């Protein structure tokens, strides 16, 4: 054999074999280098690298606390947090998209193409990340998905807390809405312990009581694999649910008030306006309505851009709370204030009569009374009952604009009421110096005449007017409107019980207020009264109509309302309280472009009052009375 012939004999190493130790040395040197490197990584840098390994595999997740409930004064839930069922898809696990996606689409009533577009074509590690296809399934949809999960590999269902407003847009402006915290809010310092992406109250009580409703978020340390899939939990801190907030709102009255805005004829445009109902003693806000409204549920899962745009571009401004920030000329409702001012100033003798020929002359100008044929000879009582303009022109002329301001200010009409809702506006009660500052023009005597019937520059909010009338009703105490009855923590322990707060007294003697009140009672209860439509069977109601002119139409122009385009019609006011002899509740209603206060706004107030007394007749002890007694604090300023 060839190999045998070529063998190298003897035990002496060949040329080749002499080189072998060199190779061995080289090999050992390389391995020594590896040992050194392993020592560096596994002994010297091990702590650092172990931390990086943990960062790889441990993910800390925030577990949001369920937001607390908001309930009405009777404990009925208005806003709560409910589980919302959703569907997620993990692209990597969907083996047969052509089967799974159409099937899922059918189950959740969606278009398969739309779902495919939502899924897209994720690549790499994104294929392991779940894509949330639906966030709030109906019970039927959820049941359908759940029962077919076994046939839909790659589809998972999930459950997340979602804010739910039981009544839809009911009391929407009181409740407000929630939304992701804004960058500016995070920077403001007021939200120091908040994180980006956190959902907070952005308006209304949701915003005011954010701290109480928020709860404490929990967290979970999860082990995840390289694809981000959760493999297990290391530890977990459960979230603490938010506390509950009990409002002073009475859902029955709220519903009655909101219902009053629904036109009887469905073809008619939905009415626009506001209602405020207050307890005249505690200042409790029993109902607060602003129309048009919005559905805060639409904000609960992150608002859709289209709806948000619609809300913000709607010419009727549905987001605005007209009850606290709508500024309207008070119109004839102002006469009650002028009457009180005139009495206190000694300018009115309640028995003295003024002749109303249907117009009033000042200098060379003529001011008409709304009743063109005139009221004839009227005293204070009749002037209020029939809302005689000429009577109050004379009072205003004698009082002058600045003293009128003093009294209006005394009724808090030039100040915020202090309700704990954001964006409250004050109206405008003019003075001569204000006009000079504002327009660089002197005050004209004729402007006082307009001001004395609540026209011209005068502006008030429905809430301001309710507080002012509340003072007339309760004998002179100005209440600070209260919206929150009590705040409890997650275990039901009371953490805050705001006491009814007084905002001072009106600068008018009680006897004079009683005279005004008697006149207001006549407005509703007496023949020829302008507010007859506010009558409630079994209860004597007092109140005042008002018709606030819309810019562009002179009050004195004689135009038939029915021939005027709806948006040019006057705003209709009615402010009423009852029972007239011992008032408990005051209701202010404004219907924008409603026309006459007596016909458009009085029925709104009537519905609220009727519901109030209907409910009181059923209950032995009304809830708010029981509570006021229980709190040890009685009637404010009485």
């Amino acid at each position, binding site marked *: 054999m060839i190999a045998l012939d070529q063998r*190298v004999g003897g035990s002496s190493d060949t040329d*080749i*074999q002499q080189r072998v130790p060199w190779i061995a040395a080289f*090999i050992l040197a390389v391995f020594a280098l590896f040992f050194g490197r*392993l020592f560096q990584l596994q*002994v010297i840098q*091990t702590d650092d690298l*172990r931390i990086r*390994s943990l960062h*790889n595999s441990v993910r800390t997740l925030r577990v949001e606390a369920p937001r607390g409930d908001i309930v009405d004064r009777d404990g009925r839930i208005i806003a709560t947090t409910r589980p919302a069922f959703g569907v997620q898809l993990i692209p990597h696990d969907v083996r047969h998209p052509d089967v799974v996606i159409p099937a899922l689409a059918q189950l959740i009533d969606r278009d398969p193409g739309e779902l495919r577009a939502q899924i897209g074509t994720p690549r790499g590690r994104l294929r392991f990340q779940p894509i949330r296809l639906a966030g709030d399934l109906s019970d039927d949809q959820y049941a359908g998905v759940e029962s077919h999960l076994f046939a839909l590999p790659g589809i998972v269902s999930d459950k997340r807390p979602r804010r739910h407003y039981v009544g839809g847009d009911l009391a929407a402006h009181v409740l407000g809405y929630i939304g992701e915290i804004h960058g500016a809010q995070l920077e403001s310092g007021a939200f120091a312990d908040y994180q980006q992406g956190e959902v907070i109250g952005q308006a209304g009580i949701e915003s005011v009581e954010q701290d109480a409703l928020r709860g404490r978020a929990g967290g979970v340390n999860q082990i995840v694999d390289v694809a981000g899939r959760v493999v297990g939990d290391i530890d977990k801190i459960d979230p603490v649910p938010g506390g509950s907030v009990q409002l002073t709102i009475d859902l029955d009255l709220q519903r009655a008030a909101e219902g009053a805005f629904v036109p009887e004829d469905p073809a008619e445009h939905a009415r626009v306006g506001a209602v405020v109902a207050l307890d005249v003693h505690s200042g409790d806000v029993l109902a607060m309505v602003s129309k048009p409204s919005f559905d805060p549920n639409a904000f609960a899962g992150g608002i859709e851009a289209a709806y948000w745009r619609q809300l913000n571009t709607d010419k009727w401004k549905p987001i605005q709370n007209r009850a606290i920030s709508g500024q309207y000329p008070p119109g004839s409702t102002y006469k009650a204030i002028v009457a009180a001012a005139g009495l206190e100033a000694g300018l009115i003798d309640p028995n003295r009569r003024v002749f109303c020929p249907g117009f009033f002359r000042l200098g060379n100008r003529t001011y008409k009374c709304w009743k063109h044929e005139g009221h004839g000879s009227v005293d204070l009582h009749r002037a209020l009952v029939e809302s005689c303009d000429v009577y109050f022109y004379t009072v205003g002329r004698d009082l002058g604009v600045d003293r009128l301001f003093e009294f209006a200010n005394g009724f808090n009409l030039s100040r915020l009421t202090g309700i704990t809702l954001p964006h409250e506006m004050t109206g405008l009660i003019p003075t001569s110096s204000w006009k000079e500052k504002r327009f660089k023009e002197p005050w004209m005597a004729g402007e006082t005449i307009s001001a004395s019937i609540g026209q011209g520059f005068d502006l008030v909010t429905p809430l301001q007017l309710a507080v002012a009338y509340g003072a007339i009703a309760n004998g002179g105490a100005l209440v600070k409107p209260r919206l929150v009855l009590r705040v409890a923590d997650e275990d039901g322990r009371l953490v805050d019980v705001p006491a009814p707060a007084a905002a001072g007294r009106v600068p008018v003697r009680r006897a004079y207020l009683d005279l005004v009140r008697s006149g207001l009672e006549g407005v509703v209860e007496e023949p020829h009264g302008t507010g007859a439509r506010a009558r409630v069977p079994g209860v004597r109601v007092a109140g005042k109509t008002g018709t606030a002119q819309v810019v562009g139409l002179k009050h004195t122009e004689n135009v038939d309302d029915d021939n005027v385009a709806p948006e040019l019609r006057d705003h209709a006011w009615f402010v009423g309280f009852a029972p007239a002899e011992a008032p408990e509740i005051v209701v202010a209603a404004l219907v924008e472009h409603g026309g006459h206060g007596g016909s458009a706004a009085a029925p709104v107030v009537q519905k609220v009052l009727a519901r109030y007394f209907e409910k009181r007749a059923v209950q032995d002890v009304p809830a708010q009375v029981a509570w006021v007694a229980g709190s040890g604090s009685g009637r404010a300023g009485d």
Partner: protein
Amino acid sequence: MLGIDRRSIQNFDWTLLALVALLSAAGLVNLYSATWVPDGISDEMRRQLISFGIGAAVAVLCIAIDYRHFERFAAPAFAAVLVVIAITMVIAQNTRGSQSWLFGGRVQPSELAKVALVLALARYFQRYPPGQTTRLRDLARPGAIIALPVGLILGQHDMGVALLTLLIGGTYLFLVRIPWRAWFGVAVLGAASLVALWTFVLAPYQKERILTVVDPDRDPLASGFQSAQSRIAIGSGGLLGTGYREGTQTQLRFLPAQHTDFAFSVLAEEWGFVGSCAALSLYATMLIWGLVVARSSKDEFGALLAIGVVGSLFWPAVLNVAMVVGLAPVIGVPLPLFSYGGSALVVTFALLGLLMNVSMRRYVF
């Protein structure tokens, strides 16, 4: 010529067998962890066990035939392998970025090039003793023998295996007697070709991998990801390791290609500094033992064969471990006996069979 005579059996190399058995067992135990599935054994594990069986049979065949007969087959085998690789290049489907797989991705012919190259070079140097190779021009023919398979593999865009084949062939340079001056010339030539390689051949992602070694945190999410995760795995193993099947990097699949190219990282994470050093020591011992076999061989062909086998086990280990510990770029070179892969395992066993063959017959004559 076939069959094992009595003296060969008496001289059976139990040390080599023990070293190979220990390393194989360590490799399988580690692979079980790297491919762990909750119930039963993974497909990879099952296939690897089958490959072990095939490898053992091939090894027995390689042991049974007296190695001296291989010299005759060296040239035709070399030619055949080249043809197979060339055919692969044309017909094989395009898998894993390189066209080097046959039979539905089960067989990798370029692995065979290792054995064929070792045989061919052993045969060449047996005829033209390396001690007489004193001039650079004497390297032209062995250089051509190396360049043929390397060129073909490069044509398949398999950078790792091409480099590996080049280095295995280069093992024989340890034996030649070329003066240092000449080596300087080679170095200059080599540097020039590296620059040319960088400029004209390497794809951007390949350059990126190389740059990542220089600056590991360069791009921690893309090319640096594998390297960084491997270092994290090894480092978090610490002195004694996280424990078998307890490595979070491994079990949560943060390690890329953990059962193939990064199998050693799994071992290092779960067994720590002690375990990884033990495994490397065992491996080094096997290589040194191979050199002992070479030195005690009674003929030059046996010695050349043994050195070739050592080279073809040493270089993949060097490239793999260097890559895994972050000293070399990420190139797909498996660690023999540890990485998952059937072709590589069978070829490794064939090479070890050749080594055993040489060892058993050192006293035959």
